[in-house]
C-alpha cells in the first residue's frame, strides 16, 4: 500500500471535506470540547496545591474519559453505517466501483475519513486531558497514551463495523439499526456474562473473559485506575487486550467488507412480490410463517386505525411473522432461565435470573424500538406519503395514535413474551410477586419512553437515516449512559449522583427492584416511575405540537 496514494485518495478527500463542511460536525466538536472542559472545571480542586500521588486528578480525569468515550460510541458508527448503502441507493457506488479506483481504495478512503474525524473529535478534548495531567498523579505513558490508543482503536473498530453492516444492508435505517445493535452488544452486553454469572471456571470463564475484550469499558476502567471496580464484577482484561481485539476485529471486518465491495453487488433484481395462495403453501411454510407475509391481505377493517395497519404492513423487520418468531424465542429463553434455576443446574438466585430477563427485554427494546419509532414520521415525509396523508381527511390525532400504537404494541408483544418466565419465578418464590409487578410496570414505562422519544426525534428529523441515528444515540445515552455512571459508582461518582442518574433509566429501576448484583443499595421506585412518566408526558406534548404543526396548512 503506497502511503502517497493514501494521502491523495480522492474518496478520502471528498468524504473529509463534505463532513467537515457540515454544521453538525462543528456542533459535535464544540459539544465534546465544552463537555470535557466543563467536567474539568466542575471537578477542579478548590485548594491551590498539586499532589503527585493523590486521587484528585484521577477524579477529574475519569469523567472526562467516559464523556469522550460515549461521544465516540454515539458518533463514530453513524456515518460509516450509512456510507455504502446510501451511495448504492444514489447510484454513485457503481460509478466508483466501475472507475479505475480499486475497491480497497474506496474502502480505505471511507474508513480513514471517519477515523480522522474520530481523531479530531477526541483531539478537541486534549486540553481537558492535559489539564488533568497538570494536576499531577497522571502520567503520559501510563494514562494519556493508552487512553488515546483506546480511543483510536474504538474509532477504527466502530468505523469498520459501520462499513461492514452498510455493505450488507438494503436500506439506510436497517443499516443504522444493526450497527447500533451490534455496538450495544460490543459495549454493554459483551461484559454481561462476567457481570451477571459471576465466578466461572474452565472454558466458560475463558469465553466470558474473551467477550469482555470486545468492550472498551474494562480498558477504560484500567486506564482510569478503577481496576478494582472491574475485578469486583469479575472482569480481569485491560487496554492491551482491548487493542488487540480491536486490531483483529477491524482487519476481519475490512476483509468481509472488501469481499462485498464488488460491482456484482449492484446486480440485484427488484422483488416484484409473489403472492402465495393457501393451497400452494407447503406444511413447512405454514409452520415457519404462522402469518405468511406473501398471502393476500384482506381490507383494513373499520375498527382498526388504518395508519397503524399500514405501519405494520410496510415493515420488513417487525412484521407479524418476525414478531411471532422473536416472541417465541423470548418465551423459550425466559422459561429455560427459570427452569435452569429451579432445577438447581446452576446456583443462581431469583435476582440473577430476573436481571438476565430484564437485560434481555431491554436489549429487545433498544434493538427494535429506536428504528421502529424513528421511521414513524421522518420516512413518511421522505417518501412523500406525509403529503398524501395531509391531503386526505384523516385527523392529525388519528395519524399520531396509529403511528405510536404500531410501535408500542410491537414492543409490548415482545415484553409479554417473557411473562411465562416471570410466572414461573413467582411460582418458585411466591414472595416476589410484588417485585415482579413493579418490574413489569418499569418495563412498560421503558417501552412508552422508547416509543415516544424515538417518535419525537423522528418528527424533528429531515431524513429517516438521521432520525434512526438520533434515536439510537438518545436512547443509548439514556440507557447505556446512565449505566456507565453506575459503573463509576463510589469512584468518581457518589451514591446520590448515581441514584439520581439511574432515575432516568427505567431498566435500572427494574434491576434495582429485583435486587440485581450492583443495584441492591438503590431504591428507585416510585421516584423512577415518576421521572419516566414525566419524560413520556413531556415527549408526548412535544410530539402532539409538532404533528399539529406538520399537518396544518402552510
Amino acid at each position, binding site marked *: 500500500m503506497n502511503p502517497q496514494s493514501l494521502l491523495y485518495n480522492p474518496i478520502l478527500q471528498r468524504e473529509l471535506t463534505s463532513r467537515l463542511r457540515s454544521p453538525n460536525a462543528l456542533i459535535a466538536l464544540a459539544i465534546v470540547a465544552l463537555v470535557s472542559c466543563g467536567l474539568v472545571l466542575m471537578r477542579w480542586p478548590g485548594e491551590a496545591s498539586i499532589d503527585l500521588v493523590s486521587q484528585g486528578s484521577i477524579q477529574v480525569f475519569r469523567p472526562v474519559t467516559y464523556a469522550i468515550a460515549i461521544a465516540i460510541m454515539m458518533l463514530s458508527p453513524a456515518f460509516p453505517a450509512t456510507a455504502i448503502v446510501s451511495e448504492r441507493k444514489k447510484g454513485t457506488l457503481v460509478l466508483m466501483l466501475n472507475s479505475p479506483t480499486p475497491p480497497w481504495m474506496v474502502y480505505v478512503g471511507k474508513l480513514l475519513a471517519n477515523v480522522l474525524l474520530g481523531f479530531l473529535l477526541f483531539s478537541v478534548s486534549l486540553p481537558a486531558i492535559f489539564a488533568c495531567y497538570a494536576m499531577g498523579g497522571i502520567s503520559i505513558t501510563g494514562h494519556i497514551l493508552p487512553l488515546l490508543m483506546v480511543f483510536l482503536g474504538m474509532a477504527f473498530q466502530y468505523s469498520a463495523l459501520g462499513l461492514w453492516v452498510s455493505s450488507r444492508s438494503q*436500506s439506510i435505517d436497517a443499516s443504522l439499526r444493526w450497527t447500533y445493535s451490534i455496538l450495544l452488544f460490543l459495549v454493554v452486553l459483551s461484559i454481561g456474562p462476567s457481570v451477571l454469572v459471576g465466578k466461572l471456571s474452565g472454558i466458560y470463564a475463558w469465553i466470558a473473559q474473551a467477550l469482555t475484550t470486545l468492550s472498551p469499558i474494562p480498558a477504560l476502567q484500567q486506564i482510569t485506575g478503577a481496576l478494582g471496580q472491574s475485578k469486583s464484577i469479575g472482569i480481569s482484561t485491560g487496554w492491551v487486550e482491548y487493542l488487540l481485539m480491536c486490531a483483529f476485529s477491524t482487519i476481519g471486518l475490512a476483509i468481509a467488507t472488501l469481499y462485498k465491495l464488488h460491482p456484482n453487488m449492484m446486480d440485484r433484481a*427488484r*422483488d*416484484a*412480490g*409473489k*403472492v402465495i395462495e393457501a393451497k400452494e403453501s407447503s406444511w413447512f411454510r405454514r409452520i415457519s410463517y404462522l402469518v405468511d*407475509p406473501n398471502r*393476500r*391481505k384482506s*381490507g*383494513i*377493517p*373499520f375498527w382498526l386505525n*388504518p*395508519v397503524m*395497519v*399500514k405501519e405494520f*404492513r*410496510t*415493515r*420488513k423487520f417487525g*412484521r407479524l411473522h418476525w414478531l411471532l418468531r422473536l416472541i417465541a424465542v423470548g418465551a423459550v429463553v425466559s422459561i429455560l432461565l427459570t427452569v435452569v434455576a429451579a432445577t438447581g443446574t446452576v446456583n443462581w438466585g431469583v435476582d440473577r435470573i430476573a436481571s438476565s430477563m430484564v437485560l434481555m427485554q431491554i436489549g429487545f427494546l433498544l434493538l427494535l424500538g429506536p428504528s421502529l419509532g424513528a421511521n414513524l414520521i421522518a420516512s413518511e415525509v421522505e*417518501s*412523500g*406519503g406525509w*403529503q*398524501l*396523508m*395531509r*391531503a*386526505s*381527511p*384523516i385527523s392529525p390525532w388519528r395519524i399520531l395514535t396509529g403511528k405510536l400504537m404500531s410501535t408500542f404494541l410491537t414492543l409490548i408483544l415482545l415484553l409479554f413474551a417473557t411473562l411465562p418466565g416471570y410466572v414461573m419465578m413467582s411460582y418458585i418464590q411466591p414472595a416476589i410477586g410484588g417485585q415482579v409487578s413493579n418490574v413489569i410496570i418499569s418495563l412498560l414505562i421503558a417501552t412508552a419512553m422508547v416509543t415516544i422519544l424515538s417518535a419525537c426525534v423522528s418528527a424533528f428529523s429531515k431524513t429517516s437515516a438521521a432520525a434512526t441515528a438520533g434515536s439510537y444515540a438518545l436512547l443509548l445515552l439514556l440507557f447505556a449512559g446512565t449505566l456507565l455512571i453506575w459503573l463509576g459508582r463510589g469512584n468518581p461518582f457518589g451514591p446520590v449522583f448515581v441514584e439520581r442518574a439511574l432515575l432516568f433509566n427505567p431498566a435500572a429501576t427494574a434491576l434495582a427492584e429485583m435486587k440485581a448484583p450492583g443495584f441492591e443499595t438503590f431504591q428507585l421506585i416510585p421516584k423512577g416511575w415518576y421521572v419516566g412518566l414525566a419524560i413520556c408526558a413531556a415527549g408526548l406534548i412535544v410530539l402532539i405540537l409538532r404533528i399539529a404543526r406538520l399537518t396544518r*396548512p*402552510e
Partner: protein
Amino acid sequence: MSDTVVETKNLTKTYGDFTALNDLSIHVNRGQILGFIGPNGAGKTTTIKILVGLSKPTSGSATIAGVDCSQNASKIKQLVGYMPDKFGSYDNMRVHEYLDFFGAIFGIPGKVRKARIQEVMETTNTTYMQDRYVESLSHGMQQRVGIARTLLHNPEVLILDEPANGLDPKARIEMRQLLLQLAAQGKTLIVTSHILPELSRICNVVAIVTAGKLRAFGSVDEVMSSLCPQRNYEVQVANAEHVGSAERVLREVLSESEPLTSSPAELTLRFPTVRTEAELADLLHKLVAAKIPVTQFRELTTDLEDAFLSVAGKD
C-alpha cells in the same frame, strides 16, 4: 356544461418578502382540462397547494364546487383528488394494499372500498399489477397507480402535478388517453406539465404563469393568438444558388420588424410577419416573377411551446 367548478380570485401568497403568487384569477368549468404552465418556481405548486387545502392564501380566494379551499379544508379533501409530483411509495406494500390504505384514510367503508378499488384499477388499467410491490413498479406504472389512488374517493376535481414527467412515449400516449377519458366522465382536471406539446393535445384551457403572475389564460388558440400575433413563414427553393436571389427579393419587400433568416443547406428562408393573405400572395408573385423556382411557400405552425417561450423570454 359551462358551470364553473374551480375558481381563484385575486389569489396572492407571500412568504416574507417573497411573492410566490400575485393576483391570480382563473376559472375552470366542469369536464374541462386546464393545462397549468410555468417555469420552475413560477407559483404552480403554490396554487395547487392552496387548491387542495395544504396552504392558505395571503389574500384572495380559491373555491372548488363553491367550497372555499382555506375555510373548509376537510370538505375540499373529499372534492379533490391530488397527485403530487412525488409518488409517495411505501416499502413492502402491494398495489392492492396501497389502494386499500388510501381508501381507508378517506373513510370509504370496507365493502364499498373493495368494489371501488376494482373499479379504479380497471379504469387505470392497473388490475394486473395488484399483487406487485409498489416500489418495484416502473415510473409509468407508478403514475397510473397514483391516478388510481386519486380516483378512489370519486372526487369532482383531479389535480395532477407533472403526470407525464419521465414517461416513455407509449406510456405518455396511454396517460393522455386516460386523462381524456376522465374528462369525458365529467371530471375536472388541472394538469401541470413541462411537456407542452402534450398539454396542447388534451387541454381545453391553459394558464401560463411566470414569477407568480398570470401571463395568459384561455383556450389554446386564444392564448397562442394573444401571445404569438406574428405568423412564421417558410420559403423553400429548388436549389442552393437560388437562396441568395430569393433573399434579395424578400429583403426588398420585408421591413425591419420581419427579420429574415436563410439556410442554404436546407434551401429555405424563414421570416415572421403580420401581413394579410393578399400581401403574402403578392410576395409570392414577386418571387415567381424574379424566376426563382419556389417549391414551397407555407406557414409554420405555432405551438404552445412558442407561446410559452414568448412569455418566459420576457422575464
